[in-house]
């Protein structure tokens, strides 16, 4: 059982590293393409990343183009940051005494980020819906509900972890 969970955790650690690198590359690519389309060659908006075409939006209104790209960069950056926090948990956790205030703080930070992302996703979705009324383009959508659901679950886990930390500290001081 121990071997199985150790193997799963090792695989997850690797997966999160791959995720972090992938998300960083994606965020960086979009940012570079965005700067190219803004300052060097406006045609770059036709293929921001992997065929993402926001040229019509750029032609319609520069402000909205910047807004939509900002939301995209924000969500990718938040996901990358959350993956980074998970890697930090893997790095710092000691399975002999897993409950530490440091880990609890990291889990809480993940839940706060997910909550912020959820709220921003709802705002972004309403913004894109409003945009689609004026211009017919293919804009990516974000699911705020999923982020909020995730934030709720992780927050509960963080609270349980915090309690575990207290109990572990008390247990360590029980003679």
């Amino acid at each position, binding site marked *: 059982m121990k071997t199985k969970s150790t193997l799963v955790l090792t695989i997850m650690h690797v997966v999160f590293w791959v995720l972090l690198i992938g998300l960083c590359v994606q965020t960086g690519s979009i940012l570079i393409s965005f700067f190219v389309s803004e300052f060097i060659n406006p045609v770059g908006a036709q293929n921001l990343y992997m065929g993402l075409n926001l040229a019509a939006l750029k032609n319609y209104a520069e402000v909205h183009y910047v807004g939509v790209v900002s939301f995209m960069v924000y969500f990718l950056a938040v996901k990358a940051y959350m993956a980074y926090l998970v890697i930090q948990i893997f790095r710092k956790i000691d399975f002999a005494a897993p409950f530490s205030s440091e880990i609890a703080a990291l889990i809480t930070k993940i839940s706060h980020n997910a909550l912020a992302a959820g709220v921003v996703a709802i705002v972004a979705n309403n913004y894109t819906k409003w945009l689609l009324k004026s211009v017919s383009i293919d804009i990516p959508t974000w699911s705020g509900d999923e982020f909020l659901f995730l934030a709720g679950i992780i927050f509960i886990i963080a609270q349980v972890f915090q309690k575990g930390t207290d109990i572990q500290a008390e247990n360590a*001081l*029980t*003679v």
Partner: protein
Amino acid sequence: MPIIVNLDVMMAKRKISLSELSEKVDLTLANLSILKTGKAKAVRFSTLEALCKALDCQPGDLLECR
């Protein structure tokens, strides 16, 4: 904390060192030190019993509520 552990007082009365007591009650020096300095959050009945037997005293001699 209003509960005071008078282990050092009893140890002085019985003229016993921390390492001697540690051997007698089968507790680590670190744990005995936690108890002696009042940092302990809880004491097991088994520990209390062992301390009472080793120091030939009552729980009330070791613990005090202020």
